[in-house]
């Protein structure tokens, strides 16, 4: 395959202030090929994506379209050139219908303006291809992260682009949707489309891609044919060192019940959910996207009101709908949507980390700044956060590093019951191992951990027990020994009940 690449980068660099996000990186995207982009959090993957899509202009180096240098003045230019992008963070219009989100700016037209019928049909057809069941007419507000991601994918597909760039499209998806997406991606590849695929899930890269380019700290490491390397090679390229085992959960002695949820019901969302988590135990909550896992977590933590049932922490009943009460009882929740729920983007790293524990850094009525900084620094170092200054606003951090800030915020409180909702979404392999080690260490120290995850290997590797939800109800419970990919998936899709 030595025809000219459709789109390529030649020796591009980009700096944000003092941060040199990308340094002299080159990349070729060929038609009919899926190219993978690998690297740790903050390695510069999304920055490259944004250069390709016209969001950023490179400080030096050039973007080549069909071998000719081009300058994209903005995303509109890149789109006109046939580049479609799925960004790392969903970029939907919450007030508009799903179909309008997909076709914004390119709505089908009839003589009397926008042809809504054609638009609905178009959206339905795209959803069909992706195996998504969504009403094209419903507003995008209230869609789960996964559904948002699926709409993003539909949006990119609808452009029928020559180049399709996907920045961690699968981070929020579970196996079923990923399989569908890959089916579609492969079909596009056959049609001669050039694809760029960013992911932290190695197995996905090996399944889909032909070539992989690795970045480390903003610099180019290598481009390899995927068949020539092993996953371990790839990790070594990304991280520059050997990694410990990914799922290091050791058996620990479990103590008494720390979190007891009984017959919890929130009308129309989940029904009759009962379970316990003991000290020292990691319990995973698995299920398909939209099964209601996040909602259970939200209700337990007091974000949403529940209609019936009760939540007890260390034997004491929690008040409804009060995160403050939950926190006082020793509960912590790392939410799934870090941008909306986890972080205050305009505030600095240290203030974000300090936000959930203001009481801990107080001197009398006043906040002690040194104490606040010390605490933030401590946790930033422990989680290997990649940052320039603690006073930088978190929105300049890469996605994975933002996730670490959320973790730091809650771990700094030293909770006795920790609920983590997709804790490793968008986190690179190295850090993922770190997070897993951390969770298991916490469990070892007697913290009760409830982990919601859509990544089956993570669920199976980490959990002492696996709870599976289906359509708002607990469908099954497996001990560690009985949990297999098949049994969990069967329960999650409602094919079997335990």
């Amino acid at each position, binding site marked *: 395959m030595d025809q000219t690449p459709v789109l390529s980068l030649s020796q591009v660099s980009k700096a944000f202030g003092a941060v040199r996000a990308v340094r002299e990186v080159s990349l070729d995207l060929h038609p009919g090929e899926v190219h993978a982009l690998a690297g740790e959090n903050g390695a510069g993957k999304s920055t490259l994506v944004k250069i390709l899509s016209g969001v950023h202009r490179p400080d030096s180096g050039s973007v080549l379209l069909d071998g000719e240098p081009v300058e994209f003045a903005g995303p509109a230019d890149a789109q006109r050139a046939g580049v479609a992008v799925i960004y790392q963070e969903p970029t939907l219009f919450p007030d508009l219908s799903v179909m309008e989100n997909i076709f914004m700016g390119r709505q089908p037209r009839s003589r009397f303006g926008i042809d809504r019928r054609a638009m609905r049909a178009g959206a339905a057809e795209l959803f069909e291809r992706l195996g998504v069941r969504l009403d094209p007419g419903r507003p995008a507000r209230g869609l789960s992260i996964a559904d948002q991601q699926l709409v993003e994918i539909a949006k990119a597909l609808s452009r029928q682009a020559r180049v399709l760039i996907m920045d961690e499209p699968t981070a929020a998806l579970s196996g079923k949707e990923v399989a569908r997406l890959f089916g579609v991606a492969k079909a596009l590849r056959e049609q001669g489309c050039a694809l760029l695929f960013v992911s932290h899930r190695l197995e996905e890269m090996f399944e889909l891609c032909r070539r992989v380019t690795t970045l480390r700290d903003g610099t180019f490491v290598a481009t390899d044919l995927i068949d020539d390397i092993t996953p371990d090679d790839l990790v070594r390229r990304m991280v520059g060192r050997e990694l410990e085992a990914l799922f290091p959960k050791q058996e620990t002695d479990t103590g008494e019940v720390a979190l007891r949820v009984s017959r919890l019901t929130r009308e129309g969302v989940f029904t009759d959910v009962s379970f316990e988590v003991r000290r020292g135990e990691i319990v995973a909550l698995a299920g398909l996207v939209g099964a209601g896992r996040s909602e259970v977590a939200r209700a337990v933590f007091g974000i949403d009101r529940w209609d019936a049932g009760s939540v007890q922490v260390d034997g004491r009943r929690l008040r409804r709908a009060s995160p403050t009460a939950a926190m006082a009882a020793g509960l912590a*929740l790392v*939410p799934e949507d870090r941008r909306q729920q*986890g972080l205050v983007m305009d505030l600095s790293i240290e203030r974000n980390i300090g936000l959930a524990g*203001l*009481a801990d850094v107080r001197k009398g009525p006043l906040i002690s700044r040194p104490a606040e900084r010390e605490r933030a620094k401590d946790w930033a170092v422990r989680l290997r956060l990649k940052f320039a200054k603690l006073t930088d*606003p978190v929105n300049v951090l890469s996605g994975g590093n933002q996730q670490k800030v959320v973790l730091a915020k809650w771990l700094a409180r030293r909770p006795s019951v920790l609920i983590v909702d997709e804790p490793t979404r968008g986190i690179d392999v190295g850090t993922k191992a770190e997070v897993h080690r951390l969770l298991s260490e916490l469990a070892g120290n007697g913290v009760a951990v409830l982990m919601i995850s859509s990544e089956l290997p993570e669920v199976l590797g980490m959990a002492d027990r696996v709870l599976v939800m289906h359509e708002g109800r607990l469908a099954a419970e497996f001990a560690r020994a009985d949990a297999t990919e098949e049994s969990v998936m069967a329960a999650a899709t409602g094919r079997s009940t335990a």
Partner: protein
Amino acid sequence: MRIDLVRRWEGLILVLLAAVVMWASLGVDGFANGSNVSFLLLDTTEIALMALTMTLVIVAAEIDLSVASTLGLSCAVLGWLWNAGLSIELIMPICLLVGAACGAFNGLLVTRLGLPSLAVTIGTYALFRGLAYVMLGDQAVADLPPAYTSLATASIGPVPLATVLVAVLAAIAAVVLHATGLGRSIFALGSNEEAAYFAGVRVKRIKFWLFVASGVMAALASLVYTFRYASARADNGTGLELAVVAAVLLGGVSIFGGRGTLPGVLMAVLLLGVVRNALILADVANEVLNFVTGLLLVASVLAPNLGAVWRRRTSPQLEGKSA
């Protein structure tokens, strides 16, 4: 980076203030003398008082357009009760309670029903003023106790007592906003309410009390106003809300919440007061005064932004919420 920008902004206001004061002292007859300075300070009292709480409210990403009407209602209550023969020492706390009730009404509508405060307070802007008219009608209550009316205009040297009150309350508000957990929480919830809620910030409670504080402050301002002008009327303070909001925005508080400082706001209040006073002294026509106020407002936000626009021109990037 953004933090620097904010600092630069306050620097800008400070430089501007210094420049205007210099110009006025040298070039405008009658500006730089004790009684004028005293009057100038006194004249900014009500706006400064209401701007203190307005700053907190706007940092929390809300707005209270009903402050001037709350002031009016409190004046009306004062006049009405005074006519009814109550003692002034009893009336004053009642007025503060009325202010608190007005604020609580706004706060309930905003927090319990989740209504946008802009809409709610446009409604209560009419409602409170209307209630003031119902209470006091066209009466002007002027026979207020001289002990209090003279207290309101009294001063220590060139510094009016009312300014001392402002200074004390400003210090308290600044400490609360910039050095306490409550202040941190206000910034956080103003910037991302959902994330703040997830972090255990009592979003609704804080907002509710901010509105109450705003109401109480408006009532306090009404006391100063009434005694200063020795006249309690239902239309007292009409139109002040825009002046208060203008001062807060000029002070560098982001209308989207989550950003701003109290010293900046106080400097802005002073800047607007000085400009107004100096221009009137210099016999500049009123229309020019309006024009200058508007220009100042736009220019103060525009100046730091122009730099950013220039930078953006040389490298297009994602344009987020602007400062």
